[in-house]
């Protein structure tokens, strides 16, 4: 019933996440946008699960775990870079290029 709308909303949220990644420069906020994308995917899974069985919900569980793991590592990296550069603005992080 709500499958179509939910998938649509999911697509919109996903696109907003992509848009966020596109227009922001702060590493943390970009990371938040990625989380937003994952969340949108979760919505798709859940919506599909309503039609296809609980497998979809299990997938959400896994995605959340992945998000958590990514968060852990991501913050460690962010902290590491912050120690070196005192900034999280990606514009200033371009030692490696060419």
């Amino acid at each position, binding site marked *: 019933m709500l*499958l179509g709308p939910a998938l649509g909303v999911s697509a919109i949220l996903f696109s*907003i996440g992509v848009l966020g990644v*596109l227009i922001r420069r702060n590493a943390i906020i970009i990371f938040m946008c990625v989380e937003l994308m994952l*969340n949108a995917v979760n919505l798709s899974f859940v919506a599909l699960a309503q039609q296809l069985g609980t497998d979809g919900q299990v997938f959400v569980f*896994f995605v959340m775990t992945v998000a958590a793991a990514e968060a852990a590592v991501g*913050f460690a990296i962010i902290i590491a870079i912050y120690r070196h550069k005192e900034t999280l603005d990606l514009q200033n992080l371009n030692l490696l290029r060419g």
Partner: protein
Amino acid sequence: MLEAVFWANAGIAIVSALACITRRSPVASALWLIMTLFATAVMFVLLDAHFIAVLQVMVYSGAIMVLFLFVIMLLNLGDQSATDMKGWFGRVVGLALGVFVMVELWVITKVVPVDQIRLPAGELNRMTVDEGAIAPVAQVLYTTYLLPFLLTAILLLAAIAGAVVLAKREV
């Protein structure tokens, strides 16, 4: 009725998401993201995923987002006044691309699953009523998806090890 609630939450989720990606302050962004997550949790409930909705609130909004805020505060980014938005050019390009992605996704995901693989209507709701919110999920998770479940353990272990090694202060 249900649809109204769904649409209301969908609106909230979208607006909060937009706010999240446009607020200057990382803290505000994080809070708006939490808002989106909550609205999504409500939609989960409407889609018969009660247990996942709970997880959403607890793990996502609770744990992960707190971590975000924590790091923001730790790194003292909260009061950053200058925006980290890209310049107008970057924003225009970003917006254009984002819209394109949206259109493209919208166009090609309008299709719903074919009938042969769909459960009878209300099946999931019936299972929840019969077996409770957790059991149908757990049933699958611990049998069919035992292996992935175990893998998440390794995943988290690796993540912990990695986080530790990177975040350790001594060099």
